């Protein structure tokens, strides 16, 4: 398998999020106009943001198996013109130990083993994103989100500086 083929294996995936968090996306990632809070444009922006937030607070939550999950567009469509996908991959592969694979071993794997690694990677994304979304959800539900344009900046800065 070539580098490109492996990259495609990952980028073709569509990470999921729990439907129980759908209202968060409606409130905080709605391209269609101004709302009560500072907003992201596309849904996946909030998702990626939540993923990084989850990583920083170390909150990884397993998605319940079953149909209570919604899919995003495939990763390849996430801000494809920006360095986002590469930075996302950089972050993921920096955590390969946690996900459970070794870079060099990847080169010797069969395709089905690689697919398993890719599955783990997507789960890694989904679970940290859930962790981040859950953090936001709690604040949102408890009315602790500032009605400020700097909401997301403040939220992540606060976590980073802790």
């Amino acid at each position, binding site marked *: 398998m070539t580098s490109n083929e492996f990259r495609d294996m990952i980028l073709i995936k569509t990470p999921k999020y729990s439907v129980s968090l759908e209202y968060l996306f409606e409130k905080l990632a709605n391209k269609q106009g101004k709302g009560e809070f500072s907003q992201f444009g596309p849904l996946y922006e909030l998702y990626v943001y939540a993923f*990084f937030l989850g990583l920083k607070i170390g909150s990884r939550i397993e998605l319940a198996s079953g149909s209570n999950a919604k899919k995003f567009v495939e990763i390849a469509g996430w801000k494809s013109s920006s360095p986002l996908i*590469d*930075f996302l991959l950089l*972050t993921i*592969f920096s955590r390969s130990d946690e996900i459970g694979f070794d870079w060099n071993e990847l080169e010797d794997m069969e395709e089905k083993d690689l697919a398993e690694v890719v599955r783990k990677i997507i789960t890694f994304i989904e679970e940290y994103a859930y962790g981040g979304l859950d953090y936001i959800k709690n604040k949102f539900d408890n009315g602790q989100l500032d009605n400020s344009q700097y909401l997301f900046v403040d939220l992540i800065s606060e976590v980073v500086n802790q």
Partner: protein
Amino acid sequence: MANIINQISFQNFYNYFGSFDKNQYEFSEGVNIVVADNGAGKSKFFNGFLWIFYDEVLDSDTKTRKNIKNQAVKICSDKAKNEASVNDFIECNVALEFSDKRFRYRISKGFRLKKLKSDSSLTESADWQVFFKELEVSKRDIQLLVYHEVYDSDEQKRILNSLIQPNLREYSLFQGEEVDKLIDFNQADSINRAVKSLTDINKYDELEKITKYVATRAEGELNEIIKSSNAASLNYTKKLEEKESKKNSLESELEKLVSYENSYSLYKSEVDKLENLNENAEGRKEFDDKIKEETSKLKELKEEYDRLVEKLNERFFDGNFGWIAIGCENEVKNFREKLNSYREIRTLKKASKLNDHSNHQINLLPPDSPDSVTLQTMLDREHCYVCDREAKKDSESWKHINSLLNRKDSSQNKPIQVFNNDLNDFFGDIQLGAQPYVGRIIGIEESIIRTREKEQSLLDKITKVKEKINNLKEERSHLIIGGDEDNLSDARQIMAQYRGALTRLQKAEEDIIKSRTRIDGLNEGIRKDENELSRMRPQDTPKEYEFHFEISSDLRDAAQRTKIRVFDEMILKLEKMANQHFQNLIKHNDLSGGILKFEKNPIGTIDFKYIDEKGNEVTGASEGFQRMKVLAVLMAIISVNPNGYLYPLLADAPLSAFGKGFILGFFEETEKVFPQSIILLKDLYDKESDNKLNKLGNELLKNKSVSSIYLNQIPENLKQIEVYTEHIKIK
């Protein structure tokens, strides 16, 4: 000789706590100044004058004048009220001494206040009982020492009025902005009223009236005597009737003229008012343009702000900001370490796999070795270009070249597959692609701060521009005079109204001219009739009647001509004096002022204009200039009076809108016009200076025009109920 105020003293009057002798100010001819900072008793001092002249004081809370009767508790010193015991009486008085060439007078007004409760409020009228005193006036011969009480109330009033005549008080006593109202250049009548009050021009009106009355009576008596003698011829009687008829027409025409003149005055004020609005309409357009410009600036700033704020979250992902990478230093470090380790392991694995392959031929060449095309050329040409030697076919050299060309790892051979999945590029691409974020991680917090600063700076700019727009609108709203903006703001409407009023004014002017022509015609006819009648008079008409009539008619005509001549001369003189005063008043300013122009209008009163050297009307001069204009005209009116001005000028903060240049000019010029002035002001006060006077104050201290300078001060760190004013005479 002019009246001079020699002294004023206060007793428990506002901050002037204590007896008269503690609050006594001596003044003399020339300029007298009382310098006081805010709250040190300037306006309260002036209230002393207001009490004496008007039985009023200016209420500092409402800025309106109020009758003294309702203000007694308020104007009595808080310190005195506080220190009084129950049933104690407090004296609150103001006393003023002035002199003319023969007598010195003392006028005093006051009341007594009785404290009714031990806890009497300092302001509650119900807690105090007030006993007003009668006006007290006494006088003494200037050569003697003892004052005698004046009991006759008419005499008391006459003495008080002689200090400053009631009709002149508005020109003699004023506070701050009241100066501007002394002569309102937008009110056609204002300047004429001032001229009538301050000059003796009215005497000529009176003279004209009297001589006309005498001439008419003389004529009547003459005609009576002729009729009664029955000696008059039929022709004489007929001529007399003709003349009477002409006189009736003249009376009716004169009435018409009065009505035309009234219309003219009315339309003139309308035109003046609209002219102002019309000029203001132009002025407003300037403001509108500025407001438009600022509004568009505001729009741009708001758009920039909205863009910044709305796109704030985009900065998380934008390659130029990469805020999403905040706090990911460890991930980047780990990735690098893993990449290095991966590459090391990989190289070793690769080398090991290649070594395992049973091929002893060289498969890796050192750098700068010839490529396969060169090797082929070398074989074809049987020459080694590396060592520049011949390499004949099948020689050792040729074989060596051949073995290099056909080595295992060369591109001409199939590569050995070292890895199942070659991911070297995969990781390399990630490192390269993520670089824009990675390179910015260290500066993200700074970038967020800068963004916040930019937002704040935009907000500040927006606030400033908004303020500017509000100020412009505020200034613009001052250009609306006498009308509400919504109805009159339409410049075209103002223009139309203005044109209409102008047409009406011109019509009134034409009516006046036509009427005057008819009057002249009738007068001429009457004069001819009179000549004829004098020839037709019967021989036995008593000469004294004829003589009386002729003399009185001549006098009447002379009075009429004199009145016109004096008035015309006065206008010329007024203009000359006003410009002289104006130039002197502004001589310490760098700016050159315009020219004050006085003109006689069709109804025989004065029109005033402020023009530049090219004759264009000047508008929009600064507040200081405007006030100097008023003062210059006022001084000119006083100066044209052959007797000058006989009363003191008493002014509280008349210079509040003035700069240093104006203030100096004012004092120098005031001395020339007013025999005495008492000016209360803070503009010379400087707390930090040794003698508490600023530079200008110290200049005036040396100035000969200034007779006396007092300094009022409130001792520091006193509670409100302990406040009292101290004064020292520094000149």
